[in-house]
């Protein structure tokens, strides 16, 4: 999946670094630029590695970071509910960005050419609350990093780590402190994710093409339908939850071409009806004029673990409704119909609540969605950028 375009990723970085209050901060003045933003300006890609070979992914090494590639992320999204049926959505993403393709020289343990940052969000559907927080650290000294064996990626005390000796189980922990400036309360998750289904190597054996250029590709694999168990705490109130999550790990250097504006990405799981246990991911890459660039992609994982890799021709997404953010003023789609004729699927998709937008200098929408079908229901996550 090519979720976040490099350029936009960089912008995200910049806005994260601004001031102390994350993306709520005013943009830099015209004449000057903050040091952190200055550090994220683009450099040549000449000495980075490029994603070009299908079938190159090996485990367990590829659980870990690929520092010679410019960008990389470990992406966890999922829908949870309490015993009483109260719904929560969560997103925890660890990004890695190389600041320089050359290896850092020098004896100080602070030396690094890697930058890590993370986004953490909880959607509290019952209270119509969307809570989000960010972290960013240099990838040295042990304050942030990623490793393959045992798998772990972390920033400060936020982490996704393999549960001891169980390759298929993962512990996610993140706690966002209350923020005086935004009035955002403290919230946290402590979740155990267990692999229930086979991994999907996206695209051509893990090489996912995003555009016509030879370098417009990423290495990309996913764990669909991971079962989740744990607690969600909002404002000191903890709730035991269960549910399902989707995991992506993707790395690349220059995956997207110049005329790409953004993308719409969906990950859904059917949990009622005859198709219960089906996990679907579809993504459209949009050009500046709003039309798909023809390199849309997706995958389908059935209950029995069988997998189908999808291309843009396999699915159609139509927008039924839109929503305009009062914070950023951007208008996002807020209701879709997704059809996969070949697989006999037609679903109406809508956000569980409005306003699941990460606001700030580079706003994007990452929110929990609900799925209605003639013969069932489901939950999922949508990500929309470039609006």
């Amino acid at each position, binding site marked *: 999946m090519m979720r976040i375009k490099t350029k936009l990723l960089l912008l995200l970085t910049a806005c994260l670094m601004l001031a102390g209050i994350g993306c709520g901060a005013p943009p830099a003045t015209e004449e000057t630029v903050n040091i952190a933003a200055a550090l994220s300006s683009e450099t040549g890609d000449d000495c980075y590695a490029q994603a070009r070979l299908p079938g190159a992914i090996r485990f367990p090494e590829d659980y870990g970071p690929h520092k010679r590639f410019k960008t990389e992320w470990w992406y966890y999204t999922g829908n949870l509910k309490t015993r009483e049926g109260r719904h929560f959505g969560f997103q925890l993403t660890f990004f890695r960005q190389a600041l320089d393709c050359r290896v*850092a020289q020098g004896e*100080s343990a602070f030396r690094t050419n890697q930058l890590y940052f993370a986004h953490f969000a909880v959607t509290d559907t019952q209270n119509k609350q969307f809570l989000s927080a960010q972290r960013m650290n240099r990838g040295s000294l042990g304050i942030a990093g990623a490793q393959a064996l045992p798998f772990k990626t972390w920033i400060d005390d936020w982490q996704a780590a393999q549960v001891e000796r169980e390759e298929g189980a993962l512990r996610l922990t993140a706690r966002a402190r209350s923020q005086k400036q935004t009035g955002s309360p403290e919230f946290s998750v402590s979740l155990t994710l267990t692999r229930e289904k086979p991994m999907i190597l996206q695209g051509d054996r893990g090489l996912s093409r995003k555009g016509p250029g030879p370098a417009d590709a990423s290495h990309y694999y996913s764990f669909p339908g991971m079962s989740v168990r744990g607690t969600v705490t909002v404002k000191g109130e903890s709730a035991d939850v269960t549910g399902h999550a989707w995991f992506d790990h993707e790395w690349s250097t220059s995956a997207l071409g110049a005329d790409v504006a953004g993308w719409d990405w969906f990950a859904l799981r059917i949990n009622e009806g005859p198709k219960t246990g089906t996990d679907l991911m579809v993504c459209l890459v949009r050009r500046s004029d709003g039309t798909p660039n023809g390199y849309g992609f997706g995958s389908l994982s059935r209950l029995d673990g069988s997998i189908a890799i999808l291309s843009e021709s396999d699915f159609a997404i139509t927008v039924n409704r839109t929503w305009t953010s009062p914070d950023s003023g951007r208008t996002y789609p807020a209701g879709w119909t997704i059809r996969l004729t070949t697989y006999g699927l037609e679903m109406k998709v809508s956000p569980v609540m409005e306003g699941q937008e990460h606001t700030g200098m580079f706003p994007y929408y990452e929110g929990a969605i609900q799925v209605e079908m003639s013969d069932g229901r489901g939950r999922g996550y949508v990500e929309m950028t470039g609006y």
Partner: protein
Amino acid sequence: MRLSPLIRTCFRSSKAQLLRTFLLIFGIALGVAGVVAIDIAKISVSKSFELSTAALTKRATHQITGADFTVPQSLFVRLRTHLGLHKTAPVIAREVLVPELDGRTLTLMGIDPFSESHFRDIRFRTGTNGISQDSGDPRTVMTRGDGVILSGSLAASGELGVDSALTLTFGGREVTTRIGALLAGGDKNPAFDGVILADIALAQEILGMGNRISRIDLVLDSDAETARVRELLPPGLTLTKTEDRNQTIRSLSRSFETSLTAFSMLVLFMGIFLIYNTVSFSVARRRGLNGTLRALGATRQEIFLSVQAEVLVYALAGSALGVGLGILLGTGAVRAVIATVSDMYYTLTVSRTHITFAILLKGVLVGILAAVGSSLMPAVNAANTRPVTLMQRSASESRLSVYLPGLTTGGVLAIAAALIIFNWPGASVNLVFAGVFLIFTGGSFLTPALVALITRGADAATVKFSGRHRLMPAMAMRNVRRSLSRTSVLIASLMVVVSVYIGIDTMTRSFRLSIVHWVDGHIGGDVHVASLDDLNRSLDKTLLDKILAMPDVRAVSAYNIHRAFSEASGEVHIFSYLRDLSKKEWTWRSPGVKRDGDVDRLLEDGWIIVSEIFARQNGLMPESQDASGGLFVAMDTLRGPETFRVAGIFRDFFMGGGRVVVSRETMKTFWGHDDITAMQIFVHGEADAKKSAVQRVMGKIRGIDRNDNAPDETPGSALLKIRSGLDIKQSILAAFDKTFLITSALQVLTAIVALTGIINSVMALILERARELGILRACGALPSQVRTLVLWECAVSGFLAGLLALPLGAFLSWVLVHVVNFRSFGWTYDMHLSGATMIQAVAFSGTAALLAGIAPAFRAGRVDIVKALRTE
């Protein structure tokens, strides 16, 4: 307008007296300039402190620092990964000297740019495409450690730019790096004017700090968080509120502000006196003209207003000139003060000259008010001038004798009021300054009576011996008395200036004497040994025995130091001695303590002794002791807060929050140090024998150091800092002298003020007496004899001013020493009134007056007899 012809007449008359008009304007200008300059210095120092502290620690609520100036970086990692405190930033900061920037002291500051968003806002200029081209490449600088970042204005001051080489000197080491990028200048990064910014990795490598950093800045939102951080702290590390820490720095700033305020007051007084002196003479010399105008029908009001209008014009001109001059002087003063503060006390990363409109306005107002106020009496006199036809000679003199009793009474009352203020313990600093002003005013009011008294007395005592040799001095003295209304203004102004000179000189001298005394007592060792290694200050245990074994060595005082922060007094240094050989001056001792040996015994029992500053900041006053004479103070220890009993309070000039001396056992128990970090070595012999012994001992210690630490004998790898006591003493005194540079400047200013004022007055006086000098010439006095007479008059005035300045100066010294300095720095020291200063002051006063008299005397010698006799 009816006034205009009068004013025109006045100006014509001024035009005819160009030199004196110039002196009048210059006099006002000088007064205003002094006030403006010191004010600029004061506010700039204050602002620089504020910006330097506030901006660099702006949003941090707390800091973690270590007793050995470092913090392990693993603590930072634990704060992040265990406690999840992401609003934390690792900082490396160290003062370095940069030869490329005039050897300025700057702070090399290593930061983690990605941790900074909660703390500091560091900005670069943007160009058309991201960072502007001439700002360098902060990206590679920070991510690859490709050099350091400087503020654009700082680099420009040394004509440096991107890629220039930069040498950083510190602790005997020298590292060359390059300027990789420039920060946006101006107000975008005001806090970084005196900072060399680097990625923390590079700073760590440059300073060779291994895996340690200087401090951790934190934003802690709750007490619970604070408690959690405290739990995590290993021994030797302290969590302090930034506020408290800045408080100590701000109190240092206030010290300088208070002393500068005192100086600014003195300059203000002198300025007012100078202006009064100048203006009143200028108006008085117009008496004849005004008499004629009155005879021609000008009313009193018209004369009054025309005088005031003229003075106002000169006041404006003088104030404008003064403001310009003040800015010039002030800029110099700012540079001097800030360099002093940065070199000696606290590195000010921001050094801006702040010139506010308020300061300039105040300067202009002082100039105008003083000038117009000064001309009030003369203007009233001028208005009361009788028409020339009715004029009597020495009319104003007879008026003075009418005022004399009133003036004298007023003077006595003013001095009495001032004494009441000074004896009132609750008087604020401002009230004290008001008291000083009262004393000056009172002294000036008493001047005519005193001058009359002294000259009359001298005359009466010598009148029988009248003779050729006495003639000139006697005539001069009587001339002074005869024109008392003029000469007493001159003498009073000179007296004020000279007393300021005495005050400043005595303060500086007394302070220096006390410092010398203290240095001799406390840093009295002949050789000092400490570790060059910032990270590990402990000395080799065997070193002490090796040194003691040297035949030249008489005794060794070995000790260690723990740095602690307390909310009451900020940074406190706790010393524990293996053998304390310092001689202390006690300001208080626990009852029962008679000899220093008793103190040592009490220290062994867990008591402590503290310095005066520590005592004051912790409210340890002799009055606060309990019934049995016990004084107690609580300090943070490894075991939490502990209460210690104080055995004595000693006088100390250590900067910061003061010193505490404890026994070795107490140090080990409560602060966990059992090492030796420094030694003072005393050697045998006297004078030259001692000198060579010191050299031998230093050489031997160097030998031990090399053998132990650098078997390959590579030069420069020695780890000991070995200095002779003399060397240390000299550098301390050099630092002291540098600190008081501005007072020396002030003394020069007093001299200029004195000269300007007196030249003006003497010229006015001589001009008024042209006729009398003409008679002398007609009677056969040679020009040289007339010159001699004038010079005698000047000398007499100057001498009298100097004489009267003695008690006033002594008093001012007392105020500066016991009120201003105590309130500024918390130091007390004995006032040493030196006879030399007194003689110097009288000599200075007489000489200044004599010098001022030279030009008028020559003019008097050339007086046109015919014209002089004709003028009636």
